[in-house]
């Protein structure tokens, strides 16, 4: 103990340690947690962190995917591949079921999306399984409403977020106590940035759905974004599909996720492009946030992810 070596964790190691701590707190303090899997890169990181937190034991929670039925097929393949590798339990909550049961009403028209319907399916599934905690992959750097959300984000029995009644969150002493019917959303990646996520994926050599890498596909242009031409989106007047090299920065529904022109086919190339970009990922690729200045805030209050 005589040498005063300066030992410090790299910032990725610090973030990883913090996230593992958060996941273990949830496992220890809540009865029935679930990990929400979106199929995107943040989910890939969450699953890796869960391995780090709980192996060689099993995950003390199942994995749940809210399936809109409008997913990129590559994402479904990725989901099934990862779950099989992990040997953990997968629950699929289907938006189609919610529509069939009359719990949700399908939107119509060229801009129809099931994005908002997911909230119904998610809250129903949480109630049905009696989950009292749900891990999500959201980060505070994504958007201004998220920047103010706690790591343990309390939801009332309607699944709603009340930004004015958030529990104080001090040090790393999280309070996950809930009454029956209430739950907490827990965001282990709160303090990560998009670039951190990509650097971590590169460092850990994580598997991802191939749509994150540049590939050629039929797209059409709408509101300055490139959408995948798919059976789920009706073209509006004047919209003509064409072939383009694109990759995706976020993965949501095919109906609301835009691709960016890119030739980056390897992880290293993608990381380099992300580091150099001057546009946020939500601004560039998510139609769901473009409705209004406060779009995300409104959806969060309703119980969205």
């Amino acid at each position, binding site marked *: 103990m005589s040498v*005063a070596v300066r*030992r410090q964790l790299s910032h990725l190691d610090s973030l990883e340690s913090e996230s593992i701590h958060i996941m273990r707190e949830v496992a220890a303090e809540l009865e029935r947690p679930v990990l929400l899997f979106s199929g995107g890169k943040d989910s890939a990181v969450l699953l890796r962190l869960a391995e780090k937190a709980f192996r*060689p034991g099993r995950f003390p929670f199942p994995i749940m995917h809210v399936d809109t039925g409008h997913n990129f097929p590559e994402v479904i393949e990725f989901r099934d591949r990862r779950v099989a590798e992990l040997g953990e339990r997968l629950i699929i909550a289907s938006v189609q079921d919610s529509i069939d049961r009359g719990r949700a009403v399908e939107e119509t028209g060229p801009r129809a999306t099931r994005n908002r319907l997911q909230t119904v399916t998610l809250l129903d599934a949480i109630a049905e399984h009696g989950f009292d905690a749900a891990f999500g992959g959201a980060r505070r750097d994504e958007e201004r409403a998220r920047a103010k959300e706690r790591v343990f984000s309390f939801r009332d029995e309607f699944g709603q977020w009340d930004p004015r009644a958030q529990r*104080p969150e001090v*040090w790393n002493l999280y309070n996950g106590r809930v009454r029956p019917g209430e739950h907490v959303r827990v965001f282990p990646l709160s303090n990560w*940035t998009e670039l951190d996520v990509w650097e971590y994926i590169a460092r850990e050599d994580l598997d991802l759905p191939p749509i994150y890498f540049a590939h050629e596909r039929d797209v059409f242009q709408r509101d300055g974004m490139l959408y995948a031409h798919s059976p789920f989106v009706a073209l509006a007047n004047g919209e003509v599909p064409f072939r383009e090299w694109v990759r995706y920065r976020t993965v949501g529904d095919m109906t609301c996720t835009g691709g960016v022109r890119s030739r980056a086919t390897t992880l290293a190339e993608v990381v380099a492009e992300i580091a150099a970009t001057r546009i946020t990922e939500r601004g560039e690729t998510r139609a769901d946030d473009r409705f209004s200045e*406060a779009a995300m805030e409104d959806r969060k209050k309703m119980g969205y992810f």
Partner: protein
Amino acid sequence: MEGFPISSNGARPATLAEPSAPPGLSGRGLLRFTTAGSVDDGKSTLIGRLLVDSRQVADDQLAQVEEASRRRSMDGALDLSLLTDGLRAEREQGITIDVAYRYFTTQRRFILADVPGHREYTRNMVTGASTADLSIVLVDVHRGVVEQSRRHAYITSLLGIPHLVVAVNKMDLVDYDQAAFASVVDTFEEFAAGLPVADRLFIPVSALHGDNVVARSERMPWYDGPTLLEHLEQVELSHEHPERVSARLPVQWIIRAPNGEPNVNHRGYAGQLASGVLRTGEEVVLTPSGRRTRIARIETSDGPIEEAVAPQSVSVVLEDDLDVGRGEMISRVDDPPTVAAELEADVCWMSVHPLEAGRRYLIKNSTRTVSALVAEVVHCMDIHTLRPVPDSSSLELNDIGRVRLRTTAPLAFDTYRANRGTGSFILIDETSNDTVAAGMIVGAPAPAQP
């Protein structure tokens, strides 16, 4: 596309010094800092300036702010403060309601907890300050040191933040006058000298015009200290020397191998080191149970390691199979924490229902949660004079005071001064489940003489 909103390369003005990290280290570690100032001191503008001048703002965010500036004001000049405005209720009322977290990277990775300055939001400042290594307190040079500035400095010291920066803002309004700056420094020092904040730095800035925020000011040649960003990049943190503090590993979770696997007897004590360094082979004690053993292995999912360094999350396998679990703390036998069922602490009260002597709460300290009784309210701080008022019987929302607590089972802790990780706690109201207090342990009362 060019430029880097979230990465370091090329985004940094050429005048800044190169990182001075020793070989083998990747520069200075993550810096968590917080900003506070009373309303209109220019905090939002300062943060906006810091982010824009260090090129941390993405084009679409900047475009949003430009558009909002045009809609909101006559002249349409870029209103930097809009960058950090968050929720709709805040924008409508023109105030900030809650702590907002921001992330940026220059030579260093930063996490900023941006705290609103209203008096009623003391609990927000405590929230933001609890994890901060550095605190920036804004003072409007024109208005001078106000009660809020003193309060912010006090909370900085109460929360054990080792580095305080006083940004003396709006220097343009006093013609960049050295005497005006010096007068703020003197007033502030008179009061702050009594506070146990080791490192204080005063920087004259103009957030509006950018002087000494990122770029060095031409208009204040009399100031030869660092700019705000330079200081943030270079300040050295105490947790860069984990070997100087006691090793503390609160047990969060026991990892067991699933049935049927060869290592079925595996029992890993998983947790995040609150402080210090633990090594394989060391003799350790678990508290409060008092069981002793040795560390057989330290595991991470990337394989076994020789030593674990705070704030790493690890899992340790012990030589003896002790039947203890979450809520125990692993320390070296020659350097254990205090174990007691009675403690004295400063608390910041965060609930509209007052704290009163005789009431019961849950206390969560490290990973241990037990019941606590408020035995006594020792004093309440007068927020105007910052002096303790004895004979207080209760603490109201946003009050800071000292209490004596008795717990139903012993806790293992250190004083907050010695250890922010193991000396802190929260109180939870068992009826509402709300977090009602942030607490900092001052000590355990000496055992009564027989």
